[in-house]
């Protein structure tokens, strides 16, 4: 039932009503609203009950193992939430004067320093509000760099075919053409193809390493050389940073600019889709172009730098300073981990992934890159099962839900057919991984013995499999009063 269906005309939640005041008479009638908006008229209890019950229809890290590849669904420490929601932080207006901002700015400054260290970059801006905006900032800086040097012919960005969709989409938003670079049979970038593709038109290459294929790009130094020699810059998509935190630093691999997904590697919550935070780090040559605001320390005082301080900046990416409350959570997380904790993230994320990979292999699953180590994630291909048993990766995914596990990422990356991209993360136990492997084995057996069970899964969730085609064909995006009630 929708919240609107709980509503009754004239029902008012009195505890939330400010006293009625008169005096909007100075607003000309033509500018005033004529009909009330369709907001629900419900009691506070109805609201609380409705949304509490809705929440229970979700899987979440707090309720289920969530091995969603590329998404790094690890434990979001509760302290990060509690401490970012302290009254002093919540009450701070974004335009508060410096004298009333030193506590907050100290956290932000120190976070910048921490991120510089883990990435091996020279400077960091916390401005971008998610990974994709970090990518945008990065590519815009690359463009600003070429422009500043009068190098105007570079209109093409290279992107491996395994890349996340945001990479090509970002390049286009920055006014670039995209050229895809193929992947070789081992999951590495096809170096010959790259060499053939680079040229004076190359603005840069966007790469994530480890790649979204769950393997580490071994020839990263050669790639870096190739691109740099052609005059391009190297962009690092930091979505997979969890795999190498404290092990290898993108700056040391030769990247010029990087974004981080704090909502992945720094364990800020995903919130059912967001918010995130996508800080960017750059090496020396891109520092002038970093997006504003940035936090500077001047003696004992912290202050925000803006366009006036950084005349070559690519500019602002938001009205204020990005997702500040998320940055606070990441800061708390970083302080909890500390130096040693950072080093261990990649160690145990990698241990879990490799362990799960070999266990699944033992149970008869095909790995996309059986010769390779897993990084923090790896790919299983169900191509054989799809062909022989008619049971798709999607069917596996849905059936996993029945067995109490969130599904891995399906059908991404696009180049591996019927794939599951699986990322257990470092915060899960061996027992949980073992249970997941058992569940996968059970489904494989079901796919043989009772394929209908798998193909019509899920069976135990609030709804059965949903009709996506109908959703797109018969668009129903907002509720209208008078529609039939439903459950």
């Amino acid at each position, binding site marked *: 039932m929708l919240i609107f269906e709980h509503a009754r005309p004239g029902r008012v939640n009195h505890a939330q009503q*400010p006293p009625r005041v008169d005096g909007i008479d100075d*607003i*000309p009638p033509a500018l*005033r*609203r004529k009909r009330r908006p369709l907001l629900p008229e419900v009691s506070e209890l109805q609201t609380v009950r409705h*949304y*509490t019950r809705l929440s229970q229809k*979700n899987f*979440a*890290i*707090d*309720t*289920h193992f*969530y091995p969603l590849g590329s998404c790094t*669904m*690890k434990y979001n420490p509760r302290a990060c939430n509690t*401490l970012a929601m302290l009254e002093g932080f919540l009450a701070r207006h*974004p*335009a508060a004067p410096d004298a009333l901002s030193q*506590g907050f700015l*100290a956290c932000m400054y120190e976070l910048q320093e921490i991120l*510089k260290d883990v990435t091996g970059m020279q400077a960091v801006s916390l401005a971008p509000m*998610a990974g*994709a905006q970090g990518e945008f900032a990065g590519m815009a800086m690359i463009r600003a760099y070429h422009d500043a040097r009068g190098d105007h012919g570079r209109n093409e960005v290279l992107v491996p075919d395994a890349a996340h*969709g945001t990479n*090509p989409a970002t390049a*286009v*938003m920055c*006014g670039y053409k995209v050229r895809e670079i193929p992947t070789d049979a081992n999951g590495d970038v096809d170096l010959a193809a790259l060499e053939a593709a680079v040229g004076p038109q190359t603005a840069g290459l966007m790469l994530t390493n480890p790649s979204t294929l769950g393997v580490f790009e071994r020839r990263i*130094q050669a790639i870096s050389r190739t691109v740099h020699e052609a005059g391009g810059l190297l962009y690092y998509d930091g979505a997979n940073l969890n795999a190498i935190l404290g092990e*290898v630093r993108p700056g*040391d691999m030769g990247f010029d600019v990087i974004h981080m997904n704090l909502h992945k590697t720094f364990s800020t*919550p*995903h919130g*059912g*889709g967001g*918010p995130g935070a996508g800080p960017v780090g750059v090496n020396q040559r891109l520092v002038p172009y970093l997006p504003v605001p940035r936090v500077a320390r001047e003696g004992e005082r912290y202050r925000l730098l803006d366009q006036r301080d950084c005349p070559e900046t690519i500019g*602002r990416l*938001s*009205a*204020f300073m990005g*997702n*500040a*409350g998320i940055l606070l959570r990441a800061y708390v997380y970083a*302080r909890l981990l500390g*130096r040693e904790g950072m080093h261990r993230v990649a160690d*145990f994320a*990698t*241990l879990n992934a490799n362990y799960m990979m*070999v266990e699944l292999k033992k149970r008869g699953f095909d790995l996309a890159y059986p010769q390779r*180590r897993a990084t923090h994630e790896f790919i299983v291909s169900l191509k054989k099962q799809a062909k022989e048993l008619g049971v798709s990766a999607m069917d596996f995914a*849905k059936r996993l839900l029945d067995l109490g596990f*969130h599904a891995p990422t399906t059908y991404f990356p696009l180049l591996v057919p019927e794939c599951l991209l699986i990322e257990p993360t470092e915060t899960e*136990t061996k027992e949980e991984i073992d249970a997941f492997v058992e569940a996968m084995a059970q489904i494989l057996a079901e796919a043989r013995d009772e394929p209908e069970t798998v193909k019509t899964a899920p069976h135990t*969730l609030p*709804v*059965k499999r*949903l009709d*996506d085609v109908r959703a797109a064909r018969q668009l129903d*995006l907002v509720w209208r009063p008078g529609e039939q009630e439903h459950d």
Partner: protein
Amino acid sequence: MPFIPHTPADIEAMLEAIGAPDIDALFDEIPAELKSEALRAIPDGLNEMQVARLMRERAARDGTPLCFAGGGAYEHHIPAAVWELTTRGEFYSAYTPYQAEASQGTLQVIYEYQTMMASLTGLDVSNASLYDGASALAEAVLMAVRANRKSKSRRILMPRTVHPAYRQTTDTIVRNQGISLELLDYHRTGGHIDPASLPAQPGDFAALVIPQPNFFGVLEEVDALTDWAHSHGALVIAVVNPMSLALLSPPGEWGQQGADIAVGDGQPLGIPLSSGGPYFGFACCKQALVRQLPGRIVGRTVDLDGRPGFTLTLQAREQHIRRSKATSNICTNQGLLVTAATLYMSLMGPEGLARTAAACHRNTRVLLERLKALGLEPLFQRPLFHEAAVGLPRNAAEVVETLAGEGIVAGIDLAADYPELGPALLVCATETKTEADLERYTHALAACLDAEGERPC
């Protein structure tokens, strides 16, 4: 090893299963010369008790000042239920609802949110959020350029009464695609875009942006502006404060045909000030433009048994399907804030929202009366929503600094963005302000201005 559950026995068993001697061996594909040394700038780990102490001290250092600043971020009462529910693990720690069957909670919340926002803006559809109001405006501009079939122009008319940071953000985001923002100046005593001042022959342009209320808190002549734009083949992008829409004509009803796109920042709907974020951008549009709308959209459909359910839809607009041809690169959005806003709107209802908006309006008017008594006049004469630019006899930055010393955020200094106005503050008094608060503010301000000459305010 905070948050890592492995026991020594686990590690041993796992390495044995893998056939690796130690964890380091798992990184053997990484060229040895790349292996990093110990991190340096990162302090030792603290336990939660220690970090809590640190954060409490820092939060306390910034205090909870009495805030008269607005400028796109407004202090409103937030019912306790909003965040007690929003931070429930099932909302807080869920991912994007790609597995619809395991995400009906989040999906239904978004569907309800879309319904509320569409109704609030008077438009047909809403997406599931963008990053913030400023970046939402940028997306609206890109959308308008794509969607305007009458014009192939990449020119956008952008009033100077639009929030300066919104204009800057939009410029950052759209200029790389060769889109230019052409500024329209405002009426010096009205503080609005005077429809009479609009060029009769504006040339080809893709869209006109109309802020309501505008950055100065002033109400624009939205009907005339909308009709003017449409009559020149341009689309209309409304930038609105959703709280104000409880009182003001919704974009979908502006002029003869209504605005085409409405965007804005959802912060006033239950989101704490929190240093500027996370907030959320909203974007609504007419049905005809839905396939150009960026960001996620939730649709209602049915399951195998014919029962209703919710799912992400029209994904062919998005980067993960369409890649370089997507309507935007946005992926992670501001989902949790959408949950909070949906709860907020549900708790307030239409009456609560209308009363809140009216109380803000009234408090700001009362504040302006009090400031007049100090000899401080609003710079603009036209009706306003809940914010006003007020002229000062001296440097606003100094006033702001002095009042900060008394735990008051005095407002926003307009010097950098609107030097032509002379010393001026943008002030705002929302429904949270009592008579005593207004008194405290005017008293402190009077004292500061009186002290003129003696010390730097």
